[in-house]
């Protein structure tokens, strides 16, 4: 099958307890409020080999979900070149909806109540997040644009893409390796719109 080559590094920048955020920790036994984690993902391969497949990602678990699980709700968001899909509507069985909002990522402490759309074959929910330079052919994230989504399971997250290039060079040139996403996100597991 397809051998995918991922260079994936994650840094968990939890302000509170780093220990409490291991994967199997969120069972009902602990009545404590789950911590909100800010996560940074670097160099996520988004079909760099141009095979036509999406790289599926779980925001809840902070990991890549194999394509064999594409028909499940295990993944939240998928990346293929500049196209982003979310697990819902025409893209997957989940109930994910999303919108691109304009503003300052750090200042958004409460997700918008409405404005979310589902993926449709013709129009994906996430558009307008990047700017294409016709002369240099460089793809740059639109400054001040970021994504707020409801994940496959209906939880809120906000996500900001910082670079489309490997190792996120400050000024990508034509030799920069594209289709490598660098982004950060905040996932709120408790179902509220709070990002604080």
């Amino acid at each position, binding site marked *: 099958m397809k051998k995918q080559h991922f260079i994936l590094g994650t840094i968990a920048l939890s302000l509170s307890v780093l220990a409490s955020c291991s994967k199997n920790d969120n069972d009902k036994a602990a009545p404590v409020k789950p911590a909100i984690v800010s996560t940074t993902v670097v160099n996520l391969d988004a079909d760099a080999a141009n095979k036509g497949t999406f790289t599926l990602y779980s925001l809840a678990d902070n990991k890549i979900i194999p394509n064999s699980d594409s028909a499940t709700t295990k993944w939240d968001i998928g990346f293929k070149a500049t196209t982003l899909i979310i697990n819902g509507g025409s893209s997957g069985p989940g109930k994910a909806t999303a919108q691109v909002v304009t503003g300052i990522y*750090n200042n958004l402490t409460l997700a918008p109540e409405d404005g979310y759309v589902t993926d449709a074959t013709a129009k994906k929910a996430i558009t307008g997040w990047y700017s294409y330079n016709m002369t240099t052919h460089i793809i740059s994230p*639109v400054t001040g644009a970021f994504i707020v989504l409801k994940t496959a399971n209906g939880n809120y997250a906000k996500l900001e893409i910082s670079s489309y290039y490997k190792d996120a060079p400050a*000024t990508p040139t034509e030799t920069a390796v594209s289709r490598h996403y660098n982004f950060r996100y905040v996932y709120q597991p408790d179902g509220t719109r709070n990002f604080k």
Partner: protein
Amino acid sequence: MMRVGTLFAQTDTTLDSKVLQEVVVTATRNEQLLNKVPIPVTVINKQQIQSMGAVLLQQVLAEQTGLFITSNHGTGVQMQGLEAEYTLILLDGEPLIGRTAGTFDLSRMVVSNIERIEIIKGPVSSLYGSDALAGVINIITSAGKKEGVTSITGRYGSNSTYNIDGSTKIPYTKGLFSVNANYYNSNGYTLGGNTTSPTVSPFKAVTAQSRWQHNWTDKWQTILSGRYYEQRYNSYFSDSKGMIDDIGKEKDMNASLNISNTPNKNFTQVLRMYYSRYATDGEMRYQQDKSSYDASFFTQNYLKPEYQADWRIHPKHQLTAGVGYVHESLEATRYDDKMAFNTGYVFLQENWKPTDALNILVGGRFDTHNQYPSQFSPKLSISYQINPAWRILGSVGRGYRAPDFRQLYLHFNNAAVGYTVVGTKLAADILQEMQQQGQIKKVNIDPAQLKDLNAESSWSYNLGVQGNPFVHSTAKVNFFYNKVNNLIDTRAIAVKTNDLAVYSYVNVNRITTWGAEVELGQTIGKYWQIAGGYQYLRTRDNDLFEKVKRGEVYTKDATTKETRALTRSEYFGLFNRSHHAANLKIAYIHSRLGIDANARVLYRSKYGFTDENGNNTPDTKSEFVPGYATVNLAAAKSLFHQQLRLQATLENLFNYTDPQHIPIMPGRIYTTGFTWTFRH
């Protein structure tokens, strides 16, 4: 190299006393003394053009205070912070046609037989109608002097650029006949090791011009003139299937007949017939099998009869009135049918001199057009001589620029990419047709709204002083403010089933440009002249700036790397506009020894080049072109009683290049040339 601070400059200050009696025509459409006309006029005379060793018009304009040479579908000129499409280019008072995407390519004009160039900054739509929004550049070829001269010039330089020029002027009792021919060749150049296509393609151009002036009686005069230009370029590029040759031709001709009648010294009337044609023909073929990649043509015709009368009603009142008609037609690959434009116009101007010190010019022009709303362009200019050394000048006026052919009638399907561009007049019909064919998914803007695309228009204010601060020195200061409304921009009016857009044109943006210009000149001793010029320029997209004020435009902070609102002071302004520009010229002229030499330094500060991060304004470092300075040198020596003149020039002494941002700037360029002049 050069700091912006104290540097003022300007290349055109000649400080001879005879300049004070210099006559200009562009500001009022009749002869006026340069030091009396209430509108600031910059004059570049033949001697200045020759001392630079310039061959093409853009070389001359590039060294003028407040002008920038731009490259967008041809070499254009930016004036008072407004792009090339807003400046009207005239040849002996008649408009030059053949603009591509708004730009009149200045490299089509060789300067060899130019007597002088008059530049007016600020709108003159009150006399010339459309396109005279930022200003007017009038290229004047007719000589004032009736002297018989024949000359031949040869020049050779870097990039195998050479030109040969011959001209003769034959005066006779009742008239003057002149003819000029020029051949220009350039092998082009390639910067930065680009192998897929040349930075500037090799091209050859021929220009031929002639003029016959005859005074039939004291009262009747005719002037018949014609110009022909032909250019061929050879370029190449590649796509996935191989190399493609791109060969094209550009032809341009104009002819005019002026019949003037002066029944008495207070009245003159002129009938002008002007015809111009501009045509391009391009063919792209694969090198391998000679199969066609693309072929295109463009033919534009322009016919203008015009009548003008100048009547001195009273020693203090001079009235100028005119009426004219323009018929323009166009046929091209990207247009469905042959298109025709008709404009009728009248203009009226009163020059009132209530006192010796006060000069008031009030006028306006009304243009009625079959394709867009009628335009009325008034202008008021006043000058006041405070004392013998100083005068102040102020003006307020409206300028406009008509929607052009493509904005009204283009019909272009980009087969390779899949989008469509339609002119506003065709939008409704084409969209309906596409809908019937099932090509349209969604309509964003009702095409009925587009029907009345209006002209872009401005209100402009200029206020300045001119004078002589010291003996043998000149000073000019001008403040300008232009507010342009109804800017035409492209909008996606519908989405096709292939998810690409159908574009058309709408009036949306509003921009403001303002700033100040200073020019100083000083003669030192018998042989030295020094001149400097400086322009401070600020520009603003008004709607975007409103968003900046509301904190809705974002930038990435250079230190924290976090997104934050762009502050008002960080808003740089429109793209391609430098805040500071300066020039400094030092000339040594020793007539007895036949030597003239000069050094010119040109500086422009950083300017926005492109938007990379989607906030529509230059903010990060890579979105700017860094500021730079260039130094040009020229030296000439005359021999054999000034019959032979030898000249060497060195442009761009320090070999400054920036291929990514400024492809039109080759590196260091050397030229040598000679002119043999024979007086008869």
